[in-house]
Protein backbone atom coordinates (compact mmCIF):
# COMPACT_ATOMS: atom_id res chain seq x y z
CA UNK A 1 0.00 0.00 0.00
CA UNK A 2 2.74 2.42 1.00
CA UNK A 3 4.85 1.59 -2.03
CA UNK A 4 1.96 2.33 -4.35
CA UNK A 5 1.39 5.66 -2.60
CA UNK A 6 5.03 6.59 -3.04
CA UNK A 7 4.89 5.57 -6.70
CA UNK A 8 1.80 7.69 -7.22
CA UNK A 9 3.40 10.68 -5.54
CA UNK A 10 6.47 10.25 -7.71
CA UNK A 11 4.26 10.07 -10.80
CA UNK A 12 2.49 13.25 -9.70
CA UNK A 13 5.82 15.00 -9.46
CA UNK A 14 6.91 13.84 -12.92
CA UNK A 15 3.60 14.94 -14.40
CA UNK A 16 3.66 18.40 -12.85
CA UNK A 17 7.32 18.77 -13.82
CA UNK A 18 6.47 18.02 -17.44
CA UNK A 19 3.52 20.42 -17.39
CA UNK A 20 5.87 23.09 -16.17
CA UNK A 21 8.34 22.37 -18.97
CA UNK A 22 6.09 22.26 -22.02
CA UNK A 23 4.67 25.71 -21.47
CA UNK A 24 4.39 27.93 -24.54
CA UNK A 25 6.31 30.84 -23.05
CA UNK A 26 10.05 30.38 -22.63
CA UNK A 27 10.63 31.00 -18.92
CA UNK A 28 14.05 32.47 -19.65
CA UNK A 29 12.65 35.10 -22.03
CA UNK A 30 9.88 35.71 -19.53
CA UNK A 31 12.47 36.39 -16.83
CA UNK A 32 14.99 38.55 -18.74
CA UNK A 33 12.64 40.15 -21.25
CA UNK A 34 12.17 39.94 -25.02
CA UNK A 35 14.98 42.27 -25.98
CA UNK A 36 17.78 40.87 -23.84
CA UNK A 37 21.04 40.24 -25.70
CA UNK A 38 21.93 36.69 -26.68
CA UNK A 39 24.68 36.22 -24.07
CA UNK A 40 22.38 37.35 -21.25
CA UNK A 41 19.82 34.81 -22.33
CA UNK A 42 22.43 32.05 -22.43
CA UNK A 43 23.74 33.01 -19.00
CA UNK A 44 20.22 33.17 -17.54
CA UNK A 45 19.40 29.80 -19.06
CA UNK A 46 22.44 28.28 -17.40
CA UNK A 47 21.63 29.96 -14.09
CA UNK A 48 18.11 28.58 -14.18
CA UNK A 49 19.53 25.14 -15.00
CA UNK A 50 17.46 24.99 -18.19
CA UNK A 51 20.41 24.19 -20.46
CA UNK A 52 20.72 20.72 -19.01
CA UNK A 53 18.97 17.57 -20.24
CA UNK A 54 15.45 16.95 -18.87
CA UNK A 55 16.35 14.08 -16.47
CA UNK A 56 19.01 16.26 -14.81
CA UNK A 57 16.56 19.14 -14.62
CA UNK A 58 14.08 16.75 -13.02
CA UNK A 59 16.56 15.65 -10.35
CA UNK A 60 17.26 19.29 -9.66
CA UNK A 61 13.52 19.92 -9.38
CA UNK A 62 13.12 16.97 -6.97
CA UNK A 63 15.95 18.30 -4.85
CA UNK A 64 14.24 21.69 -4.70
CA UNK A 65 10.93 20.10 -3.72
CA UNK A 66 12.61 18.09 -1.00
CA UNK A 67 13.72 21.39 0.50
CA UNK A 68 10.22 22.80 0.27
CA UNK A 69 11.24 25.05 -2.59
CA UNK A 70 8.58 25.49 -5.28
CA UNK A 71 10.45 28.33 -7.04
CA UNK A 72 9.53 32.00 -7.20
CA UNK A 73 6.31 33.56 -8.35
CA UNK A 74 6.91 36.18 -11.02
CA UNK A 75 3.63 37.85 -10.16
CA UNK A 76 3.88 38.20 -6.37
CA UNK A 77 7.70 38.26 -6.26
CA UNK A 78 7.46 35.79 -3.34
CA UNK A 79 8.60 32.19 -3.06
CA UNK A 80 5.67 30.00 -4.11
CA UNK A 81 5.89 28.09 -0.81
CA UNK A 82 5.36 31.34 1.13
CA UNK A 83 2.40 32.28 -1.04
CA UNK A 84 0.83 28.85 -0.59
CA UNK A 85 1.29 29.03 3.17
CA UNK A 86 -0.49 32.38 3.10
CA UNK A 87 -3.37 31.41 0.79
CA UNK A 88 -3.99 27.80 1.75
CA UNK A 89 -5.67 28.40 5.14
CA UNK A 90 -8.47 30.36 3.47
CA UNK A 91 -9.19 27.47 1.12
CA UNK A 92 -8.87 24.97 3.93
CA UNK A 93 -11.40 26.93 5.99
CA UNK A 94 -13.83 27.09 3.09
CA UNK A 95 -13.54 23.45 2.06
CA UNK A 96 -13.62 22.04 5.59
CA UNK A 97 -16.67 24.04 6.62
CA UNK A 98 -18.39 22.95 3.41
CA UNK A 99 -17.46 19.32 4.03
CA UNK A 100 -18.85 19.32 7.57
CA UNK A 101 -22.08 20.89 6.38
CA UNK A 102 -22.45 18.43 3.53
CA UNK A 103 -21.87 15.44 5.80
CA UNK A 104 -24.43 16.63 8.34
CA UNK A 105 -27.06 17.11 5.62
CA UNK A 106 -26.01 14.60 2.97
CA UNK A 107 -25.88 11.44 5.08
CA UNK A 108 -29.35 11.73 6.67
CA UNK A 109 -30.78 12.70 3.27
CA UNK A 110 -29.20 9.66 1.62
CA UNK A 111 -30.40 7.35 4.38
CA UNK A 112 -33.89 8.81 4.17
CA UNK A 113 -34.00 8.29 0.40
CA UNK A 114 -32.82 4.69 0.78
CA UNK A 115 -35.41 3.88 3.45
CA UNK A 116 -38.14 5.36 1.24
CA UNK A 117 -36.74 3.90 -1.96
CA UNK A 118 -39.06 4.53 -4.92
CA UNK A 119 -41.27 7.00 -3.07
CA UNK A 120 -41.89 10.65 -3.91
CA UNK A 121 -39.38 11.59 -1.19
CA UNK A 122 -36.76 9.44 -2.89
CA UNK A 123 -37.49 11.01 -6.27
CA UNK A 124 -37.32 14.52 -4.83
CA UNK A 125 -33.96 13.81 -3.18
CA UNK A 126 -32.74 12.25 -6.42
CA UNK A 127 -33.63 15.37 -8.42
CA UNK A 128 -32.06 17.58 -5.76
CA UNK A 129 -28.84 15.56 -5.95
CA UNK A 130 -28.73 15.31 -9.73
CA UNK A 131 -29.20 19.08 -9.86
CA UNK A 132 -26.26 19.41 -7.49
CA UNK A 133 -24.14 17.45 -9.97
CA UNK A 134 -25.41 19.42 -12.92
CA UNK A 135 -25.30 23.02 -11.83
CA UNK A 136 -22.03 24.81 -12.53
CA UNK A 137 -20.61 26.16 -9.27
CA UNK A 138 -19.99 29.58 -10.82
CA UNK A 139 -23.66 29.82 -11.77
CA UNK A 140 -24.83 29.15 -8.23
CA UNK A 141 -22.28 31.62 -6.92
CA UNK A 142 -23.53 34.35 -9.25
CA UNK A 143 -27.19 33.67 -8.49
CA UNK A 144 -26.45 33.73 -4.79
CA UNK A 145 -24.64 37.08 -5.03
CA UNK A 146 -27.44 38.44 -7.20
CA UNK A 147 -30.20 37.45 -4.79
CA UNK A 148 -28.72 37.63 -1.30
CA UNK A 149 -26.21 40.42 -1.77
CA UNK A 150 -27.56 42.63 -4.54
CA UNK A 151 -31.34 42.20 -4.42
CA UNK A 152 -32.07 41.38 -0.76
CA UNK A 153 -28.98 42.90 0.79
CA UNK A 154 -28.93 40.32 3.58
CA UNK A 155 -25.53 38.82 2.73
CA UNK A 156 -22.15 40.50 2.54
CA UNK A 157 -20.43 40.86 -0.82
CA UNK A 158 -17.32 39.08 -2.03
CA UNK A 159 -14.23 38.72 0.12
CA UNK A 160 -13.34 37.11 3.41
CA UNK A 161 -14.12 40.01 5.76
CA UNK A 162 -15.28 43.61 5.81
CA UNK A 163 -12.58 46.18 5.07
CA UNK A 164 -13.04 47.68 8.52
CA UNK A 165 -11.61 44.52 10.06
CA UNK A 166 -8.76 44.40 7.56
CA UNK A 167 -5.46 43.81 9.35
CA UNK A 168 -7.11 43.93 12.77
CA UNK A 169 -7.03 40.23 13.45
CA UNK A 170 -3.76 38.62 14.40
CA UNK A 171 -3.33 35.54 12.16
CA UNK A 172 -2.69 32.50 14.36
CA UNK A 173 -4.16 29.54 12.53
CA UNK A 174 -4.89 31.43 9.33
CA UNK A 175 -8.54 30.39 9.72
CA UNK A 176 -10.38 33.65 10.17
CA UNK A 177 -13.33 32.10 11.99
CA UNK A 178 -10.96 30.69 14.62
CA UNK A 179 -8.52 33.60 14.74
CA UNK A 180 -11.31 36.07 15.48
CA UNK A 181 -12.42 33.86 18.37
CA UNK A 182 -8.87 33.69 19.67
CA UNK A 183 -8.73 37.48 19.45
CA UNK A 184 -12.03 37.56 21.32
CA UNK A 185 -13.57 39.88 18.75
CA UNK A 186 -17.13 38.58 18.37
CA UNK A 187 -18.12 41.21 15.80
CA UNK A 188 -15.24 40.22 13.58
CA UNK A 189 -16.14 36.55 14.14
CA UNK A 190 -19.71 37.18 13.05
CA UNK A 191 -18.43 39.14 10.07
CA UNK A 192 -16.16 36.25 9.07
CA UNK A 193 -19.02 33.77 9.40
CA UNK A 194 -21.39 35.82 7.25
CA UNK A 195 -18.73 36.15 4.59
CA UNK A 196 -18.19 32.41 4.64
CA UNK A 197 -21.88 31.55 4.48
CA UNK A 198 -22.47 31.93 0.74
CA UNK A 199 -19.40 30.15 -0.64
CA UNK A 200 -19.63 27.44 2.01
CA UNK A 201 -23.30 26.68 1.37
CA UNK A 202 -22.75 26.59 -2.38
CA UNK A 203 -19.76 24.27 -2.11
CA UNK A 204 -21.60 22.17 0.45
CA UNK A 205 -24.58 21.69 -1.87
CA UNK A 206 -22.28 20.41 -4.54
CA UNK A 207 -20.57 17.85 -2.27
CA UNK A 208 -23.77 17.07 -0.36
CA UNK A 209 -25.23 15.81 -3.64
CA UNK A 210 -22.40 13.31 -4.01
CA UNK A 211 -22.45 12.18 -0.38
CA UNK A 212 -26.24 11.75 -0.34
CA UNK A 213 -26.20 9.75 -3.56
CA UNK A 214 -23.48 7.40 -2.41
CA UNK A 215 -25.11 7.01 1.02
CA UNK A 216 -28.37 6.11 -0.67
CA UNK A 217 -26.70 3.50 -2.88
CA UNK A 218 -24.81 1.91 0.03
CA UNK A 219 -27.85 1.96 2.30
CA UNK A 220 -30.11 0.34 -0.29
CA UNK A 221 -27.64 -2.52 -0.41
CA UNK A 222 -27.33 -2.66 3.37
CA UNK A 223 -31.09 -2.64 3.90
CA UNK A 224 -31.37 -5.76 1.72
CA UNK A 225 -29.18 -7.64 4.21
CA UNK A 226 -30.63 -10.53 6.17
CA UNK A 227 -29.36 -8.94 9.38
CA UNK A 228 -31.93 -6.20 8.84
CA UNK A 229 -34.67 -8.83 8.98
CA UNK A 230 -33.03 -10.20 12.11
CA UNK A 231 -33.00 -6.76 13.70
CA UNK A 232 -36.70 -6.29 12.89
CA UNK A 233 -37.49 -9.79 14.13
CA UNK A 234 -35.88 -8.81 17.43
CA UNK A 235 -38.60 -6.20 17.80
CA UNK A 236 -36.43 -3.11 17.30
CA UNK A 237 -37.94 0.18 16.18
CA UNK A 238 -37.51 1.23 12.57
CA UNK A 239 -35.17 4.03 13.61
CA UNK A 240 -32.93 1.59 15.46
CA UNK A 241 -32.95 -0.92 12.62
CA UNK A 242 -31.79 1.76 10.20
CA UNK A 243 -29.33 3.72 12.30
CA UNK A 244 -27.89 1.14 14.65
CA UNK A 245 -27.93 -1.92 12.36
CA UNK A 246 -27.86 -0.97 8.67
CA UNK A 247 -25.95 2.30 8.88
CA UNK A 248 -22.89 1.07 10.82
CA UNK A 249 -22.18 -1.45 8.05
CA UNK A 250 -21.86 1.35 5.46
CA UNK A 251 -20.27 4.00 7.68
CA UNK A 252 -16.80 2.72 6.89
CA UNK A 253 -17.39 2.86 3.13
CA UNK A 254 -18.58 6.42 3.53
CA UNK A 255 -15.17 7.46 4.87
CA UNK A 256 -13.67 6.84 1.42
CA UNK A 257 -16.49 8.79 -0.19
CA UNK A 258 -15.88 11.71 2.16
CA UNK A 259 -12.17 11.71 1.34
CA UNK A 260 -13.00 11.85 -2.36
CA UNK A 261 -15.51 14.60 -1.71
CA UNK A 262 -12.87 16.72 -0.06
CA UNK A 263 -10.74 16.55 -3.21
CA UNK A 264 -13.80 17.59 -5.21
CA UNK A 265 -14.27 20.53 -2.85
CA UNK A 266 -10.76 21.77 -3.60
CA UNK A 267 -11.76 21.75 -7.26
CA UNK A 268 -15.01 23.60 -6.57
CA UNK A 269 -13.06 26.09 -4.49
CA UNK A 270 -11.05 27.12 -7.56
CA UNK A 271 -14.18 28.48 -9.22
CA UNK A 272 -15.98 29.69 -6.11
CA UNK A 273 -12.98 31.66 -4.92
CA UNK A 274 -12.82 33.44 -8.26
CA UNK A 275 -16.43 34.58 -8.02
CA UNK A 276 -16.33 35.49 -4.32
CA UNK A 277 -12.86 37.06 -4.48
CA UNK A 278 -11.86 34.63 -1.73
CA UNK A 279 -8.11 34.92 -1.23
CA UNK A 280 -7.37 31.19 -1.31
CA UNK A 281 -5.29 28.74 -3.27
CA UNK A 282 -7.87 28.54 -6.06
CA UNK A 283 -7.72 32.24 -6.74
CA UNK A 284 -3.94 32.12 -6.52
CA UNK A 285 -3.95 29.33 -9.10
CA UNK A 286 -6.24 31.07 -11.56
CA UNK A 287 -4.55 34.46 -11.26
CA UNK A 288 -1.17 32.84 -11.91
CA UNK A 289 -2.67 30.95 -14.85
CA UNK A 290 -3.95 34.14 -16.47
CA UNK A 291 -0.46 35.58 -16.21
CA UNK A 292 1.35 32.44 -17.42
CA UNK A 293 3.20 32.40 -14.08
CA UNK A 294 4.12 28.72 -14.16
CA UNK A 295 5.79 28.04 -10.81
CA UNK A 296 2.70 28.87 -8.74
CA UNK A 297 0.54 26.82 -11.13
CA UNK A 298 2.76 23.77 -10.84
CA UNK A 299 3.19 24.26 -7.09
CA UNK A 300 -0.53 24.56 -6.33
CA UNK A 301 -1.40 21.68 -8.64
CA UNK A 302 1.17 19.49 -6.97
CA UNK A 303 -0.09 20.49 -3.53
CA UNK A 304 -3.67 19.60 -4.43
CA UNK A 305 -2.51 16.28 -5.88
CA UNK A 306 -0.55 15.47 -2.71
CA UNK A 307 -3.51 16.37 -0.52
CA UNK A 308 -5.68 14.10 -2.58
CA UNK A 309 -3.30 11.15 -2.31
CA UNK A 310 -2.86 11.83 1.41
CA UNK A 311 -6.62 11.82 1.95
CA UNK A 312 -6.98 8.54 0.11
CA UNK A 313 -4.26 7.02 2.23
CA UNK A 314 -5.94 8.30 5.38
CA UNK A 315 -9.27 6.84 4.27
CA UNK A 316 -7.58 3.52 3.61
CA UNK A 317 -5.96 3.47 7.05
CA UNK A 318 -9.20 4.43 8.80
CA UNK A 319 -10.98 1.71 6.86
CA UNK A 320 -8.55 -0.89 8.14
CA UNK A 321 -8.76 0.39 11.69
CA UNK A 322 -12.53 0.76 11.92
CA UNK A 323 -13.97 -2.18 10.02
CA UNK A 324 -13.82 -5.38 12.10
CA UNK A 325 -14.21 -7.41 8.90
CA UNK A 326 -10.83 -6.26 7.56
CA UNK A 327 -8.01 -8.15 9.21
Amino acid at each position, binding site marked *: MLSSVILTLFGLTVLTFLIGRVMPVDPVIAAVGDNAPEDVIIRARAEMGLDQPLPIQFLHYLNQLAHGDFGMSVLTKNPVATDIARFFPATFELATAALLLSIVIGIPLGVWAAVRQGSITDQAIRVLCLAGHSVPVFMLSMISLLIFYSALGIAPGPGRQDIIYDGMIEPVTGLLSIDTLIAGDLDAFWDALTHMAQPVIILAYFSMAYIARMTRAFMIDALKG*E*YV*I*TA*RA*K*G*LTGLKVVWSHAFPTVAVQLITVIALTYAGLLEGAVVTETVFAWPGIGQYLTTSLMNADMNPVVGSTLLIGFIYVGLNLLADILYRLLDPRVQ
Partner: protein
Amino acid sequence: MLVDIQNLKIGFKSRTGFHQAVKGVSLKLGTEKLGIVGESGSGKSLTARALMKLLPKSTVIEADTLAFDGIDVLSASERQMRQIRGKRAGFILQDPKYSLNPVKTIGAQVAESWRTHKGGSRREALEAAVNLLEQVQIRNPQVVAKSYPHEVSGGMGQRVMIAMMLAPDPELLIADEPTSALDATVQAEILRLIEELVAERGMGLLLISHDLPLVSHFCDRVMVMYSGRVMEELKASELLSAKHPYTRGLLNCMPSLIHPKDRLPVLARDPEWLK
Protein backbone atom coordinates in the same frame (compact mmCIF):
# COMPACT_ATOMS: atom_id res chain seq x y z
CA MET B 1 -54.16 -21.18 20.14
CA LEU B 2 -50.86 -19.34 19.45
CA VAL B 3 -51.16 -19.06 15.71
CA ASP B 4 -54.29 -19.10 13.61
CA ILE B 5 -54.00 -18.65 9.86
CA GLN B 6 -56.99 -19.02 7.57
CA ASN B 7 -56.77 -18.68 3.78
CA LEU B 8 -53.56 -16.62 3.64
CA LYS B 9 -52.67 -15.16 0.25
CA ILE B 10 -49.40 -13.35 -0.50
CA GLY B 11 -48.55 -11.67 -3.79
CA PHE B 12 -46.03 -9.31 -5.36
CA LYS B 13 -46.63 -6.53 -7.82
CA SER B 14 -44.08 -6.07 -10.57
CA ARG B 15 -43.79 -4.03 -13.75
CA THR B 16 -45.04 -6.94 -15.81
CA GLY B 17 -47.96 -7.85 -13.59
CA PHE B 18 -48.95 -9.54 -10.37
CA HIS B 19 -47.44 -12.71 -9.02
CA GLN B 20 -49.35 -14.73 -6.46
CA ALA B 21 -46.82 -16.65 -4.35
CA VAL B 22 -49.00 -18.00 -1.54
CA LYS B 23 -52.47 -19.06 -2.61
CA GLY B 24 -54.65 -19.75 0.40
CA VAL B 25 -52.76 -21.40 3.24
CA SER B 26 -54.41 -22.29 6.55
CA LEU B 27 -52.80 -23.57 9.70
CA LYS B 28 -53.26 -23.62 13.45
CA LEU B 29 -50.55 -23.97 16.02
CA GLY B 30 -50.63 -24.35 19.80
CA THR B 31 -47.79 -25.17 22.14
CA GLU B 32 -46.57 -27.92 19.84
CA LYS B 33 -44.03 -28.56 17.16
CA LEU B 34 -45.22 -28.06 13.60
CA GLY B 35 -42.98 -28.62 10.60
CA ILE B 36 -43.61 -27.00 7.23
CA VAL B 37 -41.94 -28.80 4.37
CA GLY B 38 -41.67 -27.80 0.75
CA GLU B 39 -39.23 -27.07 -2.02
CA SER B 40 -37.85 -23.57 -2.58
CA GLY B 41 -40.53 -21.23 -3.81
CA SER B 42 -43.33 -23.19 -2.21
CA GLY B 43 -44.19 -20.21 0.00
CA LYS B 44 -43.25 -21.68 3.37
CA SER B 45 -40.86 -18.87 4.34
CA LEU B 46 -43.27 -16.21 3.11
CA THR B 47 -46.01 -17.66 5.30
CA ALA B 48 -43.80 -17.45 8.38
CA ARG B 49 -42.61 -13.94 7.57
CA ALA B 50 -46.15 -12.75 6.92
CA LEU B 51 -47.10 -13.90 10.41
CA MET B 52 -44.39 -11.61 11.84
CA LYS B 53 -45.16 -8.87 9.32
CA LEU B 54 -41.56 -8.95 8.14
CA LEU B 55 -42.28 -8.74 4.40
CA PRO B 56 -41.51 -5.62 2.32
CA LYS B 57 -44.24 -2.99 2.23
CA SER B 58 -44.94 -3.63 -1.44
CA THR B 59 -46.13 -7.18 -0.63
CA VAL B 60 -49.86 -7.74 -0.90
CA ILE B 61 -51.12 -9.88 2.01
CA GLU B 62 -54.72 -11.03 2.41
CA ALA B 63 -56.23 -13.52 4.81
CA ASP B 64 -59.52 -14.42 6.42
CA THR B 65 -57.59 -14.77 9.68
CA LEU B 66 -53.95 -14.04 10.43
CA ALA B 67 -53.65 -13.99 14.19
CA PHE B 68 -50.99 -14.43 16.81
CA ASP B 69 -52.51 -15.32 20.17
CA GLY B 70 -55.73 -13.61 19.16
CA ILE B 71 -54.05 -10.43 17.92
CA ASP B 72 -54.98 -9.65 14.34
CA VAL B 73 -51.62 -9.23 12.63
CA LEU B 74 -53.04 -7.67 9.44
CA SER B 75 -54.49 -4.71 11.30
CA ALA B 76 -51.81 -4.51 14.01
CA SER B 77 -49.71 -1.36 14.12
CA GLU B 78 -45.91 -1.41 13.95
CA ARG B 79 -45.89 -0.68 17.68
CA GLN B 80 -48.12 -3.69 18.43
CA MET B 81 -46.01 -5.87 16.15
CA ARG B 82 -42.88 -4.91 18.06
CA GLN B 83 -44.54 -6.38 21.17
CA ILE B 84 -44.85 -9.70 19.33
CA ARG B 85 -41.58 -9.75 17.40
CA GLY B 86 -38.75 -10.94 19.55
CA LYS B 87 -40.70 -10.64 22.78
CA ARG B 88 -43.39 -13.28 22.17
CA ALA B 89 -42.11 -14.96 19.02
CA GLY B 90 -38.47 -15.51 18.10
CA PHE B 91 -37.45 -15.89 14.48
CA ILE B 92 -34.33 -17.83 13.51
CA LEU B 93 -33.04 -17.21 10.01
CA GLN B 94 -31.21 -19.52 7.70
CA ASP B 95 -27.59 -18.47 7.51
CA PRO B 96 -25.82 -16.81 10.44
CA LYS B 97 -23.17 -15.57 8.01
CA TYR B 98 -25.76 -13.11 6.68
CA SER B 99 -28.32 -12.87 9.46
CA LEU B 100 -25.96 -11.56 12.15
CA ASN B 101 -24.81 -7.98 11.93
CA PRO B 102 -21.21 -8.09 10.65
CA VAL B 103 -19.97 -4.98 12.47
CA LYS B 104 -21.41 -5.52 15.95
CA THR B 105 -20.00 -7.91 18.51
CA ILE B 106 -21.97 -11.04 19.30
CA GLY B 107 -22.39 -9.97 22.91
CA ALA B 108 -23.82 -6.61 21.88
CA GLN B 109 -26.30 -8.24 19.53
CA VAL B 110 -27.60 -10.69 22.11
CA ALA B 111 -27.63 -8.02 24.82
CA GLU B 112 -29.61 -5.66 22.58
CA SER B 113 -32.31 -8.28 22.18
CA TRP B 114 -32.51 -8.79 25.95
CA ARG B 115 -32.48 -5.12 26.80
CA THR B 116 -35.07 -4.11 24.22
CA HIS B 117 -37.71 -6.23 25.90
CA LYS B 118 -36.55 -6.52 29.49
CA GLY B 119 -34.94 -3.14 30.10
CA GLY B 120 -32.12 -2.84 32.56
CA SER B 121 -28.66 -1.44 32.30
CA ARG B 122 -26.10 -2.08 29.62
CA ARG B 123 -24.01 -4.14 32.01
CA GLU B 124 -26.90 -6.31 33.15
CA ALA B 125 -27.76 -6.93 29.52
CA LEU B 126 -24.22 -8.01 28.71
CA GLU B 127 -24.19 -10.37 31.70
CA ALA B 128 -27.50 -11.80 30.56
CA ALA B 129 -26.05 -12.23 27.07
CA VAL B 130 -23.11 -14.25 28.36
CA ASN B 131 -25.50 -16.35 30.42
CA LEU B 132 -27.65 -16.97 27.33
CA LEU B 133 -24.62 -17.94 25.27
CA GLU B 134 -23.87 -20.49 27.98
CA GLN B 135 -27.42 -21.84 27.75
CA VAL B 136 -26.95 -22.56 24.06
CA GLN B 137 -23.90 -24.59 25.04
CA ILE B 138 -21.16 -22.25 23.88
CA ARG B 139 -18.09 -23.24 25.84
CA ASN B 140 -16.29 -19.94 26.44
CA PRO B 141 -19.14 -17.42 26.33
CA GLN B 142 -17.02 -14.52 27.61
CA VAL B 143 -14.69 -14.75 24.63
CA VAL B 144 -17.43 -15.36 22.08
CA ALA B 145 -19.38 -12.36 23.37
CA LYS B 146 -16.47 -10.13 22.45
CA SER B 147 -15.94 -11.56 18.97
CA TYR B 148 -17.54 -10.58 15.66
CA PRO B 149 -19.78 -12.91 13.65
CA HIS B 150 -17.18 -13.54 10.94
CA GLU B 151 -14.81 -14.88 13.59
CA VAL B 152 -17.02 -17.82 14.58
CA SER B 153 -18.12 -20.96 12.72
CA GLY B 154 -21.55 -21.40 11.14
CA GLY B 155 -22.75 -23.74 13.89
CA MET B 156 -21.58 -21.30 16.55
CA GLY B 157 -23.27 -18.45 14.68
CA GLN B 158 -26.56 -20.32 14.69
CA ARG B 159 -26.24 -20.92 18.43
CA VAL B 160 -25.76 -17.18 18.84
CA MET B 161 -28.86 -16.59 16.75
CA ILE B 162 -30.84 -18.96 18.98
CA ALA B 163 -29.55 -17.27 22.13
CA MET B 164 -30.54 -13.90 20.72
CA MET B 165 -34.05 -15.03 19.91
CA LEU B 166 -34.54 -16.76 23.26
CA ALA B 167 -33.36 -13.75 25.25
CA PRO B 168 -36.82 -12.22 25.85
CA ASP B 169 -38.34 -15.67 26.67
CA PRO B 170 -40.76 -15.97 23.73
CA GLU B 171 -43.73 -18.34 23.64
CA LEU B 172 -43.15 -19.33 20.03
CA LEU B 173 -40.00 -20.03 18.08
CA ILE B 174 -40.06 -19.84 14.30
CA ALA B 175 -37.04 -21.44 12.68
CA ASP B 176 -36.71 -20.79 8.95
CA GLU B 177 -34.38 -23.48 7.56
CA PRO B 178 -32.15 -23.12 10.63
CA THR B 179 -29.70 -25.79 9.53
CA SER B 180 -29.63 -25.70 5.73
CA ALA B 181 -26.48 -23.59 5.64
CA LEU B 182 -24.60 -25.80 8.08
CA ASP B 183 -22.49 -28.92 7.78
CA ALA B 184 -24.37 -32.19 8.14
CA THR B 185 -22.72 -33.07 11.46
CA VAL B 186 -23.57 -29.69 12.98
CA GLN B 187 -27.16 -29.83 11.70
CA ALA B 188 -28.19 -32.53 14.12
CA GLU B 189 -26.55 -30.75 17.07
CA ILE B 190 -28.37 -27.51 16.37
CA LEU B 191 -31.72 -29.24 15.93
CA ARG B 192 -31.23 -31.17 19.14
CA LEU B 193 -30.42 -27.91 20.90
CA ILE B 194 -33.60 -26.31 19.56
CA GLU B 195 -35.62 -29.35 20.58
CA GLU B 196 -34.22 -29.30 24.12
CA LEU B 197 -34.79 -25.61 24.61
CA VAL B 198 -38.32 -25.78 23.23
CA ALA B 199 -39.16 -28.64 25.57
CA GLU B 200 -37.47 -26.99 28.56
CA ARG B 201 -39.24 -23.67 28.10
CA GLY B 202 -42.56 -25.06 26.88
CA MET B 203 -42.55 -23.07 23.66
CA GLY B 204 -44.35 -23.67 20.40
CA LEU B 205 -42.13 -24.41 17.42
CA LEU B 206 -42.66 -23.71 13.76
CA LEU B 207 -39.86 -25.46 11.89
CA ILE B 208 -39.51 -24.69 8.21
CA SER B 209 -37.38 -26.97 6.11
CA HIS B 210 -37.07 -28.73 2.78
CA ASP B 211 -35.90 -31.88 4.53
CA LEU B 212 -38.91 -34.12 5.01
CA PRO B 213 -37.40 -36.92 7.17
CA LEU B 214 -35.62 -34.40 9.38
CA VAL B 215 -38.80 -32.46 10.06
CA SER B 216 -40.82 -35.57 10.73
CA HIS B 217 -38.19 -36.64 13.21
CA PHE B 218 -38.31 -33.44 15.26
CA CYS B 219 -41.95 -32.36 14.95
CA ASP B 220 -45.35 -33.53 16.12
CA ARG B 221 -47.11 -32.59 12.90
CA VAL B 222 -45.95 -32.02 9.33
CA MET B 223 -47.50 -29.77 6.70
CA VAL B 224 -46.43 -30.28 3.09
CA MET B 225 -46.54 -27.23 0.81
CA TYR B 226 -46.18 -26.98 -2.94
CA SER B 227 -46.47 -23.89 -5.11
CA GLY B 228 -48.13 -21.73 -2.49
CA ARG B 229 -50.66 -24.34 -1.40
CA VAL B 230 -50.92 -26.89 1.38
CA MET B 231 -50.85 -30.34 -0.17
CA GLU B 232 -51.30 -32.39 2.95
CA GLU B 233 -51.14 -32.14 6.72
CA LEU B 234 -50.50 -35.14 8.89
CA LYS B 235 -49.01 -36.46 12.11
CA ALA B 236 -45.28 -37.00 11.87
CA SER B 237 -45.67 -40.61 12.88
CA GLU B 238 -48.04 -41.23 9.99
CA LEU B 239 -45.74 -39.79 7.36
CA LEU B 240 -44.98 -43.13 5.78
CA SER B 241 -48.68 -43.65 5.13
CA ALA B 242 -49.01 -40.28 3.41
CA LYS B 243 -51.68 -40.27 0.72
CA HIS B 244 -50.89 -37.24 -1.39
CA PRO B 245 -48.90 -38.12 -4.52
CA TYR B 246 -46.57 -35.13 -3.96
CA THR B 247 -45.62 -36.29 -0.46
CA ARG B 248 -45.24 -39.83 -1.75
CA GLY B 249 -43.09 -38.54 -4.57
CA LEU B 250 -40.85 -36.67 -2.14
CA LEU B 251 -40.46 -39.79 -0.01
CA ASN B 252 -39.64 -41.87 -3.06
CA CYS B 253 -36.89 -39.48 -4.09
CA MET B 254 -34.98 -40.19 -0.85
CA PRO B 255 -31.87 -42.27 -1.29
CA SER B 256 -31.88 -45.17 1.13
CA LEU B 257 -29.04 -47.30 2.43
CA ILE B 258 -31.30 -50.21 3.25
CA HIS B 259 -33.07 -50.40 -0.11
CA PRO B 260 -30.60 -48.90 -2.58
CA LYS B 261 -31.97 -48.02 -5.99
CA ASP B 262 -29.96 -47.74 -9.18
CA ARG B 263 -31.55 -44.49 -10.08
CA LEU B 264 -33.59 -42.10 -7.93
CA PRO B 265 -36.99 -41.42 -9.42
CA VAL B 266 -37.75 -37.95 -10.71
CA LEU B 267 -40.66 -36.21 -9.04
CA ALA B 268 -43.58 -36.01 -11.41
CA ARG B 269 -45.68 -32.87 -10.86
CA ASP B 270 -49.34 -32.95 -11.67
CA PRO B 271 -51.05 -29.65 -12.59
CA GLU B 272 -54.18 -31.18 -11.05
CA TRP B 273 -52.70 -30.58 -7.54
CA LEU B 274 -53.04 -26.87 -8.02
CA LYS B 275 -56.76 -26.91 -8.81
